């Protein structure tokens, strides 16, 4: 299966969207339909190419396949950087994911963003994003990955802030970029640690170097954690999770593409790629961060009322799952979940976009510009009005809740099995499966809460319900497509067992051994997970059922009252509703002091150091020169020079008195001098 044309395809896949970006930026406004067909065309071609690669991979059935190609980017003699592509099964699957969701977003936006003020620019940035994301996917070295990493961040910044006339959108974009930068600092430090010990940026060289022990122990752990910080930033893990919910300010197709399916998944992808170099300590950190985030974000999603915010926190939580999987060793399960999550989460976002679109139209018709079209409390009863949206979202909700027969069940189950197995072998870390299953329960609950509030029950704003209607086919098309991909069968082919994840995926994506000497080998991890499989399955089905039941009772049957539960939860409800005041606390304890520091430093520099110290030299010199001048004029000129004259003058008048004009005096002087001289001569 060493198809050389894979490299050519990859080149096209990588650069076509970039070409679309360039065309759109410079010529977009002047093209017919503002050039959306350019972008859509480019991304459809990438989809076709990646599907060809995918199908070839499927029928080649080789799990160890890799294809690599590099070129020297810069060379200074000893220091050089090579860039290149690495194509293996994971790459190809990821390429398909990116291409598919990107195409869906492009198509969805044809309707969703129709008439937008910056339509061509929007498509340009989508192209830039697709290019950068593929850059991460195809990278075979840390520098390429880092570069694409940052470019993805820029695309995110540009797209979140698409409607930049709104301050909230501009702020959200900036927040996203800066939070990512914090993660990138760690990422870069990790890169530097690895490069310093191993001398290369290429994955292959690094893995060989790790295996050879060129970097080990604490340094390797720190390098791993450093790299993971990048993932924390990009995949919005605690404590860098703050940007993703705010990123919902961007258009919904962007949220679906970047902040659900692909960009945020980049962190997971990176962790999956670099799994072989994480030490057990690093993996533990990874697992805890992921697990905690999963539960933590889920606990916030439970009380949110903005439909997109629920989905945003859900994404953070699901990403936490994937990171947890990487940390506990079952990283192929993480990748599996990445794949299934991309499908159903994107679908959920598109669905929400569809709902919001409908709400917008209805509100617009009533000339109501104050009601929030994204607030679920204004919805209700949309089921009959938007059937396609409803049913597709329901399928995805079932998937995310982990109900058997759907894709999410398979991937979640694999993760939970791995986590449980890990805890069974490391009893000290019992908290991890607690995180996992707890989050599963909450996920089921809040997702069905979302469905019931939006689609079931009585409409909360009855005056709108007549104007709510289904969205056009450009928007429902992707919905149907992705919903169907949320059913289990597409992942288990050619097997049809809904309870087992055995299928083309598990055949093709096989965990490789860690390169860290002493780490447990992959097959052991797989065996442990397999042993824990059924236990995990029962528990996960149980908690899912529990969560769904609670949601049904609370929102559908109205047996429990949500308000009462909220009131009795008291402080907990308040914290959850306000995302645990993280943003406020970060602001109070981090941002404000930092700005104060910056102002202080600037004041120190300009008003103190420069004004007093540096100018002090000037003032001192000025003073010195005045003193010197005075000294020179009064002291030397007046004192010494003129003084000499005055003394001489004085002496002159004194001596003048000798000239009495009297002869006798002169005689006296003569005589006296004679006598004195004689005396002196005698002695």
């Amino acid at each position: 299966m060493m198809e050389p044309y894979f490299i050519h395809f990859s080149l096209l896949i990588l650069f076509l969207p970039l070409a679309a970006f360039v065309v759109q930026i410079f010529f977009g406004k002047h093209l017919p339909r503002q050039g959306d067909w350019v972008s859509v065309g480019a991304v459809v071609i990438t989809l076709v190419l990646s599907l060809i690669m995918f199908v070839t991979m499927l029928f080649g059935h080789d799990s160890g396949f890799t294809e690599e190609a590099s070129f020297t980017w810069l060379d200074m003699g000893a220091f050089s950087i090579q860039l290149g592509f690495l194509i293996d099964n994971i790459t190809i699957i990821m390429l398909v994911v990116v291409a598919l969701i990107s195409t869906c977003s492009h198509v969805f936006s044809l309707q969703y963003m129709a008439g937008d003020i910056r339509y061509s620019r929007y498509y340009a940035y989508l192209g830039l994003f697709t290019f950068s994301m593929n850059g991460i996917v195809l990278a075979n070295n840390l520098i390429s990955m880092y570069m694409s990493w940052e470019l993805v961040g820029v695309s995110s910044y540009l797209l979140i802030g698409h409607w930049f006339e709104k301050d909230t959108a501009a702020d959200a974009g900036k927040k996203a970029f800066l939070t990512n930068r914090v993660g990138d600092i760690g990422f870069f430090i990790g890169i530097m640690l690895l490069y310093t010990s191993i001398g290369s940026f290429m994955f292959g060289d690094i893995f060989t170097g790790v295996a050879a022990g060129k970097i080990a122990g604490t340094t390797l752990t720190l390098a791993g954690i450093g790299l993971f910080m990048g993932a924390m930033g990009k995949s919005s893990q605690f404590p860098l999770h703050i940007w993703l919910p705010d990123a919902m300010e961007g258009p919904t197709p962007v949220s679906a593409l970047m902040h659900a399916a692909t960009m945020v998944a980049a962190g997971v992808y990176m962790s999956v790629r670099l799994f072989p170099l994480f030490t057990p300590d690093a993996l533990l950190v990874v697992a805890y961060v992921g697990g905690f985030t999963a539960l933590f974000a889920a606990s916030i999603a439970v009380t949110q009322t903005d439909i997109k915010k629920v989905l945003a926190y859900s994404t953070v939580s699901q990403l936490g799952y994937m990171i947890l999987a990487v940390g506990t060793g079952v990283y192929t399960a993480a990748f599996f979940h990445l794949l299934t999550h991309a499908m159903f989460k994107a679908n959920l976002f598109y669905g929400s976009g569809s709902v919001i679109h409908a709400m917008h139209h209805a509100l617009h018709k009533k000339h109501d510009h104050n009601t929030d079209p994204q607030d679920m409390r204004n919805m209700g009863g949309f089921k009959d009005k938007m059937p396609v949206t409803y049913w597709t979202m329901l399928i995805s909700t079932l998937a995310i809740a982990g109900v058997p027969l759907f894709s999410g069940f398979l991937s979640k189950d694999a993760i939970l099995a791995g986590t449980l197995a890990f805890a069974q072998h490391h009893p000290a870390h019992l908290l991890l499966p607690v995180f996992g299953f707890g989050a599963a329960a909450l996920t089921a609950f809040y997702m069905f809460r979302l469905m019931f509030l939006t689609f079931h029950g009585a409409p909360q704003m009855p005056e709108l319900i007549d104007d709510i209607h289904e969205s056009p086919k450009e928007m429902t098309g992707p919905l149907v497509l992705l919903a169907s991909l949320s059913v289990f069968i597409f992942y288990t082919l050619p097997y049809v067992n809904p309870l087992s994840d055995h299928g083309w995926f598990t055949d093709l994506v096989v965990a490789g051994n860690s390169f860290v000497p002493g780490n447990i080998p992959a097959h052991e991890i797989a065996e442990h997970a397999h042993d824990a499989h059924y236990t995990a399955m029962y528990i996960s089905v149980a908690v899912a059922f529990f969560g769904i039941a609670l949601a049904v009772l609370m929102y559908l049957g109205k047996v429990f009252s949500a308000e009462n539960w909220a009131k009795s939860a008291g402080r907990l409800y308040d914290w959850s509703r306000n995302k645990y005041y993280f943003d406020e606390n970060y602001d109070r304890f981090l941002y404000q002091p930092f700005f104060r520091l910056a102002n202080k430093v600037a004041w120190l520099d300009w008003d103190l150091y420069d004004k007093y110290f540096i100018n002090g030299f000037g003032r001192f010199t000025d003073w010195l020169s005045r003193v010197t001048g005075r000294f020179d004029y009064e002291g030397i000129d007046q004192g010494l020079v003129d003084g000499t004259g005055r003394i001489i003058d004085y002496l002159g008048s004194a001596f003048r008195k000798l000239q009495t004009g009297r002869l006798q005096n002169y005689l006296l002087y003569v005589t006296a001098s004679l006598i004195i001289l004689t005396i002196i001569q005698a002695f």
Partner: protein
Amino acid sequence: MGILSLLIWLPILGMVTIAFIPRKYEKYIKITAAVATGIQLLLSLVLWQRFDAGIGTMQFMERLEWIPSFNIAYILGIDGLSLPMVILTALLCFICVFVSWNISKAVKGYFALFLLLDTGIIGVFLSLDFFLFYVFWEVMLLPMYFLIGIWGGPQREYAAIKFFLYTLFGSVLMLVGILGLYFSCGKTFDIPELMRIAPEALQGVVWWGMSGIKVIWVLLFIGFAIKVPVFPFHTWLPLAHVEAPTAISVILAGILLKLGVYGILRINYGLMPDGVYWFSGALAFLGLINVIWGGLCALAQTDLKKLVAYSSVNHMGYALIGMAAVIAAGAANGTNFKAAQAGIGGAVFQMFNHGTISAMLFILVGVIYERAHHRDIDGFGGLASQMPVYAGITAVAFFAGLGLPGLSGFISEAMCFIGAFPVYRGIVIASTIGILLNAAYFLWAFQRIFFGELNEKYNKLPEINRLELFTVVPLLVITIFFGIYPAPYLDIIARTMDMIINSVVSLSTFAGM
């Protein structure tokens, strides 16, 4: 006449021509300046074409006896370190003629002084005789004083005199160092000669009980450090930048700052490699302070030009850290040639990149200042809706400033970090916060100026015009080009960098430290 001499004397010729054009023919004066700098640019490109990047030593050397009794000669030469700087100078001077196209006060004087400045700068980069170097160094100062003091902003006299005296102070210390070298090394001003004999000749030289090498190193370093500018000698920079007219800010940031780094590399590193080992820790630490101090100060600014000025301090910090990395090639530090190449290559690349990026930024600040007559960041708002092209170009410039991959700034910063990391782990880790600071102040400023609701005052602001585009776009293209494909630049400098590294490592007696 050699091509190097042509490069130096062409602007003087232009200046003399301008001196003869009557004051009222402003257009012809400007055209003369443009032609002079244009030919200079072409010549520098021809030079690049004919330059042999495979050897690291001086090329196109010219030598004339000047004052034989003091052993002063007119020696010119170019190598991988100075070639990019010469090209950058020629390019920026050419562009700045167009940036200054709308000067209305005393046009003749302005362009005459400008061309004189041009000569001074190119002369410094090309001269290989210490005395000549010093002469050109001083030639630069005088036009700057007048250009800032006459055509500048409200506090221009203060800024001009401060800049002049501060830099002159450094020059005087430099002169002491030069004379120290002259007398210790057998009374020669010839720099290539000094490079050969200085390390040995300075052994055992003692000045007032301190090692002569260290004293001379520090004296020369201070002279250059004031120009870089290294904290704590940096406070003249914000003032000079804010008060200078746009074109002069561009030259100041784009080239004059690089003279400091060039000086350190050519003179301190080339002539006294012992001192490099002794000082590199301090150099890295000063670089760290530059990064953090400059970044924090930039964050607190409300004047856009001052913000960009402080960002220059910040970016030069990276170059300093990269320069300190050269000692990685020493035996005691693991003979890590890769790190040394990365560090020094990064520093020299950063010189060029910062030159283009800062120049771009200052031109763009000038554009908005022309229109709104103030630079208060908080006084704008929502300009992206009114001036989308300007917003787009400024966005790219800001991203270049914050080191976004795909634009040239990233590679040089990354190389500096990667190079210095093996030797100065802690300092590099601490200075990576600089990339966060960069992003913070640039994006925050961008948001305050361009995003949000359009400020009513500016709903008739004209878009960036063709002349301004002409000045900015070449720099933008270069930034993007080197961001994607840095190899051409690095190929030019590589062999000379090797020579510098080797001389530091092998000629140094401290190599075992």
